[in-house]
C-alpha cells in the first residue's frame, strides 16, 4: 500500500517535472512564431517607410511664377492673328525675353543658360496654348505659373543640400540666389502633382508621369485575364471533373506544376520566338504582353482552380447526379459556383503576380521609352514594373522620387486587386 502510494508520488512528481518542460517548450514555440511574424512586419515596415519617405514628394511639384510679356514682334509681327502664325511662333524666345527683362542682372552665356533652365521646357507649350486659346493676350503681359525644372524642384523640396560645393550639386550658386529671391517674393509654389497621374514618360523628370505605364499595365492585365481565366478554368474543370485518371493526366499534372515554377524570363523568350517572330505580332504592345503573361498565369489558375474544385464536397456531385443532372449540368449548376470563390482568388493572385512581372516583358520590347499613353491593345506601351526599372536607371536626382512614387502606385494597384479578390470571395462564398 505504502509502496504503491510512494510510487504514485514519484509518478506525480515526474509528470509535474515533465509538465514544466512541456510548458517551457510550448512557450518557446509560441515565441518563435511571434518572432517570425515580428521580423516579417519589421521588413514590411522598413520597405514602406523607405519607399514612402522617398516617394511622397513625387506627388507634389514646384511651380514658379513668371511675368510673361507677349511681345507682338516675337509672336505675330505681321499682326495677322492667323492660327498658323500663332502656332508656329517662337514661344521659347518669348519666354526668354520675358525672363531677361525681369532679371536683367543675369548676363553672359552661362548665367543666361541657368536663367532659361530654371523653367521646364514644357513652358513654351503652355504659352502657345494660352495664346491660341486667347489671342487677345498678344501685346499684354501676365503672370503665369510655370513648371520648374527638375533641379529647381529638387532644391525647393530640400533634396539638394545648398551647403555642398557648387561643383558637387546640379544647381549653381546663381540659381540658388534666384530661387531664394523668388521664394521671398512668394513666386514659388509646391502644388499637387496632377501630371504624375495624367502624363506619360518623359526625359524631363518634372514632366514624367505614370499614366502611360498604368494604362499599359491595365491593358496587358486585361488581355492576360481575358485569355487565362476562361482557358485556365476550362482546363481545371476538365482535368478535375472529366479527365480519366491515368498516366497521361498524371504527366499533364506534373507538367503544369513544373510550368508554374518556370522562371518568367523563359516565358518572355517563348513569347518573343512564338508571337513576335513566328506570328509576326508587333513588339512592345499590350497584346503580346498579355499573351505572354497569360502563359505565365495559366498554371497558377489551373492549380488553384483544381484545388478549389477538389474542395467541393462529393455529396454535392452525388446529389446532382442523383437528380439526373448531366455531368456538364453538375459542373455548371453546382460544383463551379461553389468553387468560384477559390478560382477567383487564384486568378487574382496570378494576376497580381503578372502585374509585378517585368522580366518577360523586357524580352518582347515593352521596355521602350514611350511618351504617349496607350489607348489600345496594339499601341506601344510599357508597364509599371518596367517603368520603375527605367526610372531607377535614370541619373537625374528627380527620378529617384518618381521611382518610389511609381512603386507606391504599383503597390496601390496591388492592394486594390487584392481587395477586389477578398470582396468577390466573400460575395460568392456559400456554406454547405
Amino acid at each position, binding site marked *: 500500500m505504502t509502496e504503491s502510494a510512494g510510487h504514485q508520488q514519484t509518478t506525480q512528481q515526474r509528470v509535474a517535472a515533465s509538465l514544466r518542460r512541456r510548458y517551457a517548450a510550448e512557450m518557446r514555440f509560441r515565441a518563435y512564431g511571434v518572432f517570425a511574424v515580428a521580423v516579417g512586419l519589421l521588413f514590411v515596415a522598413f520597405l514602406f517607410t523607405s519607399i514612402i519617405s522617398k516617394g511622397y514628394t513625387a506627388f507634389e511639384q514646384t511651380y514658379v511664377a513668371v511675368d510673361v510679356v507677349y511681345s507682338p514682334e516675337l509672336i505675330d509681327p505681321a499682326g495677322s492673328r492667323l492660327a498658323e502664325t500663332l502656332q508656329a511662333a517662337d514661344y521659347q524666345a518669348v519666354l526668354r525675353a520675358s525672363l531677361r527683362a525681369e532679371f536683367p542682372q543675369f548676363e553672359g552665356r552661362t548665367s543666361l543658360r541657368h536663367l532659361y533652365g530654371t523653367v521646364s521646357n514644357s513652358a513654351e507649350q503652355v504659352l502657345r496654348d494660352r495664346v491660341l486659346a486667347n489671342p487677345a493676350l498678344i501685346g499684354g503681359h501676365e503672370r503665369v505659373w510655370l513648371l520648374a525644372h527638375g533641379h529647381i524642384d529638387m532644391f525647393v523640396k530640400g533634396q539638394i543640400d545648398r551647403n555642398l560645393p557648387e561643383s558637387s550639386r546640379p544647381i549653381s550658386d546663381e540659381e540658388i540666389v534666384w530661387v531664394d529671391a523668388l521664394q521671398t517674393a512668394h513666386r514659388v509654389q509646391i502644388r499637387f502633382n496632377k501630371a504624375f497621374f495624367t502624363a506619360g514618360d518623359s526625359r524631363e523628370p518634372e514632366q514624367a508621369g505614370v499614366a502611360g505605364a498604368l494604362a499599359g499595365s491595365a491593358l496587358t492585365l486585361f488581355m492576360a485575364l481575358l485569355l487565362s481565366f476562361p482557358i485556365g478554368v476550362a482546363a481545371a474543370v476538365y482535368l478535375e471533373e472529366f479527365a480519366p485518371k491515368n498516366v497521361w493526366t498524371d504527366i499533364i499534372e506534373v507538367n503544369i506544376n513544373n510550368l508554374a515554377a518556370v522562371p518568367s524570363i523563359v516565358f518572355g523568350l517563348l513569347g518573343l520566338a512564338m508571337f513576335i517572330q513566328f506570328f509576326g505580332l508587333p513588339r512592345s504592345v499590350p497584346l503580346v504582353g498579355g499573351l505572354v503573361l497569360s502563359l505565365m498565369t495559366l498554371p497558377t489558375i489551373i492549380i488553384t482552380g483544381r484545388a478549389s474544385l477538389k474542395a467541393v464536397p462529393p455529396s454535392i456531385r*452525388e*446529389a446532382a447526379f442523383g437528380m439526373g443532372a448531366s455531368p456538364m449540368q453538375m459542373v455548371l449548376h453546382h460544383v463551379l459556383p461553389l468553387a468560384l470563390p477559390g478560382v477567383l482568388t487564384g486568378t487574382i493572385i496570378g494576376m497580381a503576380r503578372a502585374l509585378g512581372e517585368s522580366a518577360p516583358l523586357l524580352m518582347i520590347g515593352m521596355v521602350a521609352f514611350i511618351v504617349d499613353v496607350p489607348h489600345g491593345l496594339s499601341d506601344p506601351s510599357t508597364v509599371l514594373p518596367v517603368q520603375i526599372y527605367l526610372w531607377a536607371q535614370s541619373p537625374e536626382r528627380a527620378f529617384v522620387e518618381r521611382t518610389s512614387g511609381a512603386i507606391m502606385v504599383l503597390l496601390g494597384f496591388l492592394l486594390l486587386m487584392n481587395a477586389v479578390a477578398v470582396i468577390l470571395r466573400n460575395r460568392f462564398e456559400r456554406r454547405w
Partner: protein
Amino acid sequence: MTIDKHQHVVNISRGIVFNEGDQSLPGEAIETKTVGQVTVDSPVISARHVNVHYGEKQAIKDVSIDVAKNAVIAFIGPSGCGKSTFLRCLNRMNDTIPNAKVSGSIRLDGSDIYDRSQDIVQLRARVGMVFQKPNPFPKSIYENVAYGPKIHGLAGNRADLDEIVQLSLRKAGLWEEVKDRLDNPGTGLSGGQQQRLCIARAIAVDPEVILMDEPCSALDPIATAKVEDLIDELRENYAIVIVTHNMQQAARVSQRTAYFHLGDLIEVGPTEQIFTNPRHRLTEDYITGRFG
C-alpha cells in the same frame, strides 16, 4: 437450385426442412443460392445474376432480386456486405466510380438499365435517390425542389413549378414547416428537415422507385421517426428500396427484407418472417446480434 455444402449442413443441423420447392412459388424460375422468395408477381425492378467488381475485388456476387411496386424493401447486413453497392447499381450511381464493373441484368419495367440505349439522365429521373448524409444544394429551399423539374423540363411555367414544389414539399411532410421561408437556404434547415427536403427533391420528378441509402443514420430519433412515417406514406405511390443498419427500422418500415453478407444475398423474405423466423443461420446470427 445449388446449395453449398455448408449451408446444407447448417440447415439440416437446425432441423429446418429446406424448401426444395422454391420453383413452385409464383414468379419466374431462377437459379439462385439465396434462401427465400426473391421474385414477386409484378416487379418494377428485377435484378438477375448481378456481379459488381471494384478492380480485382468482387463486391457483389451473383445477386438476383425483385423490387415490388408500392412496397418498401429493406436491405440489411453488416458493414461492407455490399448492400449500398447493390443499391447504387439500381440507378447506375456506380458509373461515377472508376474501375467499378457491373455484369448481369437489371430491368426497370422490363428494359435493361445497363443497355447501351438506356439514357442515364432518364434513368435517374425514374429512379430517385436519397443519400446517407442530407445533401441539399447550397441554394434556397425552393431551388432545391425545383431543380429536378427544371433540368428535366417538367414544368412549363412558373405556376406549374410552384405547384410541383408545393406538392413535393407536402408529400415530404415539410410544407407546413418551410412554406414561409422557401427562399431561405436549404442548408439552414435542421438535419431531419434537410433529409425530408432531399426526399421532396427526389419525388419532385415523380420517379417510380426511390432508393434510400441509410437515410436516417445522421438523424436524431425524432427526425428518424418523421422520416420513417414519411417512407410509409410514400409507399402508396412509389416503390422504395432502403438500406439500413438499424434492424428495428427495417422491421418498422419495410414489407420485405433482404439480408446481404459479404457480397452474397443470403436471404429474402417478408419482413416479419425474416425477423421472427429466419431460415438461414447467418441471417439469424445477424438478427440476434451475434455479429454485425
